[in-house]
């Protein structure tokens, strides 16, 4: 089955530094997402992206966050000035166009995650 890939798998950064997390969604997918999971807590929706713009975002996704699809294959999440509470696992996900059949019934494919530690 195709995969969503994320880099880095783990990053440690100092508070106040900028961080960019990278994702390569599955090639024919059109919808892209970022989720995060603080240790021991729920997986939380951050943002969805379609047709080169943000389609939905949560309250968590404030002005410190931005997303970009700079070159048609990568999908990035930037945190401008990291805070301690940004420490979490960040998951990228992608979805195919509506109506594309899936052999497994799955429609939303998650990457392995990028673990961000802010110190």
């Amino acid at each position, binding site marked *: 089955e195709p995969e969503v890939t994320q880099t880095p798998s783990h990053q440690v950064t100092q508070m106040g530094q900028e961080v960019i997390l990278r994702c390569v969604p599955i090639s024919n997918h059109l*919808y892209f*997402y970022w*989720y995060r999971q603080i240790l021991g*807590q*729920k*997986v*939380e*929706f951050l943002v*969805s*992206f*379609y*047709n080169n713009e*943000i*389609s*939905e975002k*949560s309250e968590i996704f404030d002005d410190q966050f931005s997303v970009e699809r700079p070159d048609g294959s990568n999908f990035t999440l930037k945190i401008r000035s990291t805070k301690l509470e940004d420490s979490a*696992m960040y*998951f990228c996900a992608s*979805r195919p166009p509506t109506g594309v059949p899936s052999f*497994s*019934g*799955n*429609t*939303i*494919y*998650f*990457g*392995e*995650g990028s673990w961000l530690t802010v110190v």
Partner: protein
Amino acid sequence: EDKVVQSPLSLVVHEGDTVTLNCSYEVTNFRSLLWYKQEKKAPTFLFMLTSSGIEKKSGRLSSILDKKELFSILNITATQTGDSAVYLCAVEQNYNAGNMLTFGGGTRLMVKP
């Protein structure tokens, strides 16, 4: 406020036992309900349910959705130690061009030999 609630929070069983995990939801713009297994990192897809009353089955795992009572259950029969994981329920909501998932808090299952 949209919410997805899973119970129990955690469960310890012995190999061979059968377990039932519960997920109830109150959301707007319901599209589907998904079950995931999370061991170390990314949630691994198990099932997607869209219609009430139709059981989905994969090996020892099965799941069913009740859209009238707004809940779903995940059954695991003849549990094995490899089933130990956090099981996540998520509801997919339909918003314009940006379907999103709202996750429950998960049920942590430990299967002892």
